[in-house]
């Protein structure tokens, strides 16, 4: 029996019991649409976070510090999957980042595939306000090297020029805070960034300094909704005041963290290894993305488990439908055997029916999942994700569609095996006598 005839026969049998076929397929559809929709939401969220992290830490850079643990301090002690480290009684103070030595910095600069090395400037600003207004807002000052600034998408204005001073690019969300209608309205305005010294003496109010910056650009909407991008040079100046240490970022106290730009993102792991061979610590965006990937794998597994349970229940429906079909078609199976169908052929006939149920259910399910995803995207863009028009919370890569269709087909195939086996074992003589 040819493959085409098997498919034809399966379809004609499914048509014979339309309602039952519809219900059986529907169960598969529910499972397949659940799996595909839930996974697509996971993928969408992961892609969004990944893009955000890449904006904060470009894939063609490596962060270098005296040790890997140093980053942990900088990131608030995430741990990167390692067991918590033991610290001495006077150790583990959050601000005690060990500066690199000049020799170490030179050694990093001399590594192969390193294009340029910038200090990673840390500072905390207290607030920001628009010149002429008295409303203060929270802010996060991001001193960035030129090339990284240029990776940021702007909706108005221009990038900072190399070595420019007192120019800044503000996050899109400040438009709302500042009460500006259009991104263009912000260009040319000034903001005042207030910085309070990190360490104050007990009983004394800490010192405060205001810095004026001209707005030259506005970013598109991202998760970094409080960031104000300034040049490294401005950053170092403010940081010296913030830390109350004029030697910061000079040869006396070199930077503790370096942002190393590579010729290509493909060298990231190689350079990170070379940095570690120098006895220093390095992290790449892959490290961070890998961590996020692990988290999302877990989330997606849990989410798709619901759909998988639905698919499992659907497979019981398939078994039931096919066993019913054996009873209905006992005589027909007998006739088929009498005119030349082997056991294998009968087995194939029933297996193919299951496969078609799973395949159709998978296709329709993915279609419904996709449509629901589109609906969720369009609803989210007018409500809770209004600020992120470019972000689709439901994302359907081709492999998800193919994967879910294949999964439901395989589940249905597995469900059909037992009924198919049973049908093939029917004694033709008994079957022909069956009323």
């Amino acid at each position: 029996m040819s493959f085409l005839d098997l498919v034809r026969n399966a379809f004609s049998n499914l048509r014979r019991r339309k309602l039952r076929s519809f219900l059986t397929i529907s169960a598969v559809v529910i499972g397949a649409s659940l799996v595909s929709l839930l996974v697509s939401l996971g993928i969408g969220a992961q892609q969004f976070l990944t893009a955000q992290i890449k904006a904060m830490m470009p894939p063609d850079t490596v962060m270098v510090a005296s040790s890997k643990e140093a980053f942990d301090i900088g990131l608030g002690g995430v741990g990167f999957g390692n067991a918590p480290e033991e610290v001495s009684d006077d150790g583990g103070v959050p601000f005690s980042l060990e500066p690199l030595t000049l020799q170490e910095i030179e050694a990093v600069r001399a590594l192969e595939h390193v294009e340029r090395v910038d200090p990673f400037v840390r500072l905390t600003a207290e607030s920001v306000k628009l010149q002429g207004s008295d409303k203060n807002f929270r802010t996060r000052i991001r001193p960035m090297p030129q090339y990284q600034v240029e990776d940021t998408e702007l909706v108005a204005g221009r990038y900072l020029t190399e070595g420019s001073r007192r120019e800044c690019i503000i996050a899109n969300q400040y438009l709302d805070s500042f009460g500006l209608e259009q991104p263009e309205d912000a260009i040319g305005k000034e903001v005042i960034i207030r910085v309070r010294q990190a360490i104050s003496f007990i009983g004394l109010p800490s010192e405060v300094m205001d810095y004026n910056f001209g707005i030259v650009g506005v970013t598109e909407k991202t998760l970094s909704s409080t960031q104000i991008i300034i040049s490294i040079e401005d950053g170092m100046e403010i940081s010296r005041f913030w830390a109350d240490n004029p030697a910061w970022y000079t040869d006396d106290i070199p930077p503790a963290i370096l942002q190393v730009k590579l010729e290509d993102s493909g060298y990231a792991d190689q350079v990170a290894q070379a940095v570690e061979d120098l006895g220093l610590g390095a992290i790449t965006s892959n490290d961070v993305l890998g961590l996020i990937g692990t988290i999302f794998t877990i989330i997606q597994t849990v989410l798709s488990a619901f759909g998988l349970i639905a698919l499992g229940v659907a497979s019981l429906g398939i078994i039931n439908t096919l066993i019913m079909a054996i009873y209905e078609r006992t005589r027909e199976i007998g006739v088929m055997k009498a005119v030349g169908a082997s056991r294998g052929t009968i087995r194939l006939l029933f297996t193919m029916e299951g496969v078609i149920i799973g395949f159709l259910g998978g296709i329709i399910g993915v279609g419904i999942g996709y449509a629901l995803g589109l609906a969720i995207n369009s609803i989210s863009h007018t409500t809770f994700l209004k600020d992120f028009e470019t972000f689709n919370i439901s994302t359907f890569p081709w492999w998800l569609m193919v994967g879910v269709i294949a999964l439901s087909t395989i589940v249905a195939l597995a469900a059909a095996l037992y009924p198919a086996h049973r049908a093939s074992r029917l004694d033709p003589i008994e079957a022909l006598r069956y009323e």
Partner: protein
Amino acid sequence: MIELHDVWRLYRMGGETINALASIDLKVSEGEFVTIVGPSGSGKSTLLNIIGGLDTPTMGRIEVDGQDLSKASDRELSLYRNKKVGFIFQTFNLQPTHTALENVSLPLVFAKVPLWRRKRIAREVMKTMELSDRLRHKPNQLSGGERQRVAIARALVNDPKILLADEPTGNLDSKTGEQIMELLTRLNKERGITLLLVTHDLKIADYADRMLRMLDGQIAEAVDRRQAL
């Protein structure tokens, strides 16, 4: 053509062993018309099923057209049923949801004949059965005689050497039954198809070259009507 040597077929039924066939020796030559008569439970249908490759003997040897059926695998037996023999049943056993043409085509499906050729061959065979105006009819739109002719067309569609008929006139009125018998006799005489026919109607046995009377799984009597005449 058909040779059975000491063929036994035993069934177990509630701890009891039943000899459906007990030491059957039989030779049927090519083009012969043999009827098998006997009371129900005498083993006539079992004999037919074993010759048709639907059942296998518990002991003994059966050879058809040089092929040893007692040692054949399921796949070989299905091929044999598909190509060498055609079954005709008392209850026609047509597929009610399929058209007459589709019913006739069924053996060709398992012979892996492509769809367009299936239709052509089936139409050809139905023409010889005078069913050309009944191609698209479903079995319930056909008379009893027409249904049996569709079933005969299905049995003939792969051009078999042997026809096995189990009470082919049992569900028909006597006039239609006669027509079917004439049709089968003609197929036997004109096309040289070996015909084995199970019946308990002695009048039908008159059509045959040879009549076997079965009792308790054994051939109790064999009447060669050609010699008798």
